């Protein structure tokens, strides 16, 4: 169930990120989404298809203008992954820092450290 690839692929494009940001404010039609961009409707539609495939947005089937809706769960999953990844490296580096102090103290390479 690794949809993260698709999410990151979708978010890799600045226009698509802008669309996501716009949809965070509320649902919007293709016309409304196209407005701020100097882009044809088909070009915007193409981006919307990528976003839809990634699960980041959904589009109403019944309404005439098929408004786009941001699916927060997919966005949250991407944000969570980034945060988790950062946490792992931060904690790993905390430990490495301690380890480096320990072994340097043991080998006397650094003499006496002041802390601890």
């Amino acid at each position, binding site marked *: 169930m690794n949809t*993260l*690839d698709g999410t*990151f692929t979708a978010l890799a494009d600045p226009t698509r990120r802008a669309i996501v940001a716009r949809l965070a404010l509320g649902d919007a039609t293709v016309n409304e989404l196209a407005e701020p961009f100097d882009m044809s409707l088909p070009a915007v539609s193409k981006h919307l298809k990528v976003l839809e495939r990634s699960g980041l947005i959904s589009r109403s089937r019944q309404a005439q203008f098929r408004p786009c809706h941001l699916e927060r769960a997919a966005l949250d999953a991407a944000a969570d992954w*980034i945060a988790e*990844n*950062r946490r792992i490296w931060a904690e790993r580096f905390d430990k490495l820092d301690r380890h480096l102090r320990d*072994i340097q103290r043991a080998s006397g390479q650094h003499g006496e450290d002041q802390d601890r």
Partner: protein
Amino acid sequence: MTEHPPDAGELTFTRVFDAPRDLVFRCMIEPGHLTHFWGPAGVSTPLDKISVDARPGGVFESVMVNDADGSEYRLRVIYDEVVAPERLAWTDPDTGMITTSTFTDLGESRTEVTIHQVRVPAPLRSPQAQAGFTTSLDRFAAYLSVLANNEGGTA
């Protein structure tokens, strides 16, 4: 100091260590050192579950064990670059993510380590597609949390 431009679109982590570059570099490729720090908080990496073949094409494999419930997380990556004591790069074949570690000698036994990660799913490896990664995902992550916090009002 980095001769390579960092890969586009990276997640970046930087930390300065009070230790000479050679030593910091060795910590990242020697199981005897890795076992002391490779797992994040609350997670151990037993020495006998780390194997390192530090050369291009070689495998770096580790099993991290959650101290609380014993659950295991296996990481298996392939080295792309091993340039002691300056740079390490590996690819996770499962996700396509490339992790590059750059070691910069700051003098006076201080070393800066920068981790760049690029998530590059296979279909994205064209130059045009990579250009799309040039905006930092990190910054976007911060932005996402702002969006998430504003969530309350809109439906």
